[in-house]
């Protein structure tokens, strides 16, 4: 077996040193009734060729998003990732290292985490960011819990245009903690009134921009209302490329920014692993969840990095920790960091402009299709269209023709007839004019 270096002779010699007659003697603490004598009902070992053949066959039973026109968004976006990203993250020293608990031999990981924290803080317009969370929805739930700790209040208002899966994740993660969630009704208008929902027990208001339906929000006034009432504003971002085109959440009053970083460097991966972004004000840092890397010096006075403020974390604080999170999403944070490094200021702004331009072109094209109406007044690279027929069926029909038309809203919010004809459509730098034509033609056909 190619991954196991011990030979039969080695095993015999080692048992002799231990003084055991057989390896089974070493397992004698397992109750006899629970020991497995033979092999479990699974196939035996296989060579690389056979395994690769089987897995490749399985992969071939999927239709990759890039195999044809794809306009899927809804919290995960298809972007071009420079080849250098995947090359660099496969370096052994990044790929096969552990959490940097021994800083003297982990400066590589610590340095990229410090750079990642800086990049995220810059992009969100916040003072500090952590070394990443699992993904966007759990980051949002953590933001709500953090607001609860900071304000010592027990309510949270969730916008009706927050990604439905994020709303559900927040509900799941807070359901046993006596938190009162005020779930605003689904809002596709981009004009909901959240300020009127704030009460004396509101710890935070959670709002997404660009929101689930693509609408953009200036949160400045809402932030003011929150702060006057002693509550915090949590801003959620699921499309980080938008940072290159839009005013930063930190410049619109956000106290905590929670987001999904997948678009930059990570790839679609059928939903995971992704990388959660989490940023806040520096005076809130001790209530922040997750790992933090800080700057310091070594015994010779040279600049160095180290994990810090660990007393917030579970391995020290146990049940009083700010979160139970242990890992971050290190390698995905590295991918994000490399992609952002390659883009730089000019590249990210240009990428964002390309995305917006693609979405505007597509919106104009689709709006001209009979039976299709663009709902949004504002958007970045994703918007909602209303079809003359149920969107789910249209998507299935077009999928059979090789077009991934978008995300039917009903897939995420199934029981609302008013939403049945809504389709989320995203356009990125990867979408060509020919693909846009194909979508417009396809929609013409299915809505006719």
């Amino acid at each position, binding site marked *: 077996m190619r991954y*196991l*270096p*011990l030979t039969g002779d080695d095993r015999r010699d080692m048992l002799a*040193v*231990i003084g055991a007659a057989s390896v089974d*003697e070493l397992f004698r*603490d*397992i109750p006899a009734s629970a020991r497995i004598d033979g*092999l*479990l009902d699974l*196939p035996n070992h*296989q060579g690389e060729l056979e*395994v690769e053949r089987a*897995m490749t066959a399985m992969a071939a039973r999927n239709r990759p998003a890039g195999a044809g026109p794809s306009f899927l968004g809804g919290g*995960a976006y*298809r972007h071009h990732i420079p080849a250098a990203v995947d090359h*660099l993250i496969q370096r052994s*020293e*990044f*790929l*096969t290292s*552990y959490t*940097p608990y021994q800083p003297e*031999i982990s*400066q*590589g990981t610590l340095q990229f985490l*410090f750079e990642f924290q*800086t990049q995220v803080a810059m992009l969100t317009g916040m003072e500090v*960011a952590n070394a990443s969370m*699992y993904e966007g929805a759990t980051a949002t739930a953590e933001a709500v819990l953090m607001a609860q700790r900071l304000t010592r209040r027990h309510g949270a208002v969730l916008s009706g245009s927050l*990604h439905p*899966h994020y709303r559900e994740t927040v509900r799941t993660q807070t*359901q046993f903690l006596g938190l009162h969630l005020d779930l605003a009704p689904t809002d596709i208008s981009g004009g909901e009134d959240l300020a009127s929902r704030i009460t004396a027990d509101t710890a935070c208001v959670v709002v997404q921009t660009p929101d689930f339906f693509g609408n*953009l929000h200036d949160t400045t006034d809402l932030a003011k209302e929150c702060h006057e009432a002693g509550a915090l504003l949590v801003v959620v971002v699921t499309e980080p490329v938008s940072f290159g085109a839009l*005013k930063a959440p930190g410049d619109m009053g956000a106290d905590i920014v929670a987001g999904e970083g997948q678009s930059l460097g990570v*790839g679609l991966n*059928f*939903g*995971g692993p*992704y990388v959660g972004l989490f940023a806040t004000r520096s005076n809130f840092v001790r209530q922040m969840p997750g790992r933090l890397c*800080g700057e*310091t*010096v070594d*015994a*010779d006075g*040279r600049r160095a990095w180290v994990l810090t403020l660990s007393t917030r974390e579970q391995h020290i604080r*146990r*049940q009083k*920790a700010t979160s139970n*999170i242990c890992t971050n999403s290190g*390698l995905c944070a*590295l991918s994000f960091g490399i992609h952002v*490094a*390659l883009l*730089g200021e*000019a590249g*990210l702004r240009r990428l964002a402009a390309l995305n917006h*331009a693609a979405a505007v*072109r597509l919106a104009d094209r689709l709006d001209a299709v009979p039976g299709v109406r663009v709902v949004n007044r504002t958007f970045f690279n994703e918007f909602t269209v209303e079809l003359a027929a149920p969107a789910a069926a249209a998507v299935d029909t077009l999928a059979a023709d090789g077009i*991934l038309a978008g995300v039917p809203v009903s897939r995420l919010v199934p029981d609302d007839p008013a939403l049945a004809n809504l389709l989320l459509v995203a356009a990125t730098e990867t979408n060509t004019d020919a693909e846009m034509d194909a979508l417009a033609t396809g929609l013409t056909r299915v809505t006719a």
Partner: protein
Amino acid sequence: MTDQAAHQAAHRGLDLEEPLLFDFGETGRSGVDLPDPEPVASRLGGLERTAPIGLPGLSEPQVIRHFVRISRNNYSIDGNLYPLGSCTMKHNPRLNEKVARLPGFADLHPLQPESTIQGALEAIHTLAHWLRTLTGMPVVAMPPAAGAHGELCGLMAIRAAHDAAGQNRTRVLIPESAHGTNPATAALCGYEVDPIPGNARGRIDVAAIREKLGPDVAGIMLTNPNTLGLFESQVIEVADAIHDAGGYFYCDGANLNAIVGKARPGDLGVDAIHINLHKTFSTPHGGGGPGAGPVAFSEALAPYAPLPLVVRGDDGFRLVEHREGQGAASFGRMRAFHGQMGMFTRALTYMQSHGADGLRQVAEDAVLSANYLLESLKDDLSAPFDGPCMHEALFDEAFLQGTGISVLDFAKAMIDEGYHPMTVYFPLVVHGAMLTEPTETESKQSLDRFIAVLRKLAAAAKAGDVNRFRDAPRHTFRRRVDETAAARNPVLRWTPPTPDAQAAE
């Protein structure tokens, strides 16, 4: 640029000093060539960014060189034995990486129509089948993103089951030797934590559990094999006791590598166990994630498993994404999408490579190697408990008594000898714990070399060669770092050098 010049002056051989990206990036270049955007009528509604982000501009060769240079400052399992107890730093096969990158897996959007993702759902379903078979448990929930997320998944199911039965139970029993994630997770589910002391053999007595049981106990979180590297020999009695009291048995499966193919948690009375795919099933640790922590459930807890579920129907695989059908009683969704697909494809590749026979050999070799270390080193270092151990050998600070050398010093001296230290000061219940996990992917020559180095260091410590330890590490890119300064005055990001150019806040 002066900063960069200073750094360059400090190159030593292959150790290349590398500043932060922000120290040398300049505007006016990018490592990505993009076309000019077509002019369009903006739909940004007046929310256009006007302030600069502050990101440095770099070309591709600069970025490659930057990350290659800093990578060289990391220790890795590809480079050498990585004996971190409780972390299972085993070899990460490269076939796994290749398979995970097939466009048929990597380039799938999570919200594609089911007709276009049958292979992906099959992969998840097949992995779940392997996990069900290996654990002897009927249902596996795939969404959890990591071990701690899996714990949350398990405890939420327990809480949901009690709630559904109209039971208000408030207390969770957790051994003092547990990972910190266990009590932190229990707190997130609104539970009080009641610590259970271990016995002189490093295990939990069923008598100690019985003493704590009552109608308010929701369950127990027990790591088995436990964090001291020992198998909880009374585990079945513990499970019976907790079940008799109406509670559930959560098993922290961090140490599954020791028993995979040799014993099944389902046969030990476990109701829920998370499986760290990044430990037992070799997905890379990546400097601290991403991991994956699927949870196997007993029949009693299965109805409460999180969404989505992957189910097999007559005409293929299907996702249950809402509370309906088999998911009607689910405690809900715990992340945006289905799970850590990139980890699933790697783990499934690994499992198929090893097969039933190979996985059993994995456990045997891992346990054999740990016992070989324990036996070879117990007289040079000191071991608080007798063997046999499972896949980790636990040593403690007793052998350093009176030397003036701490476990931390000893660990840092190992670095000078080319080794990453074992896990130190965990578990907390053993003074100066040194939890050593060689894994099954080390050759005997590699283990013997490691043993020789530890013997040499132990002898030096006992001989009073104090400076060698206190000054360690001396041969690394950076020497001991000042953690106190980092914590007292946290600097958590780069800021521009001149005060007027401070980031806008």
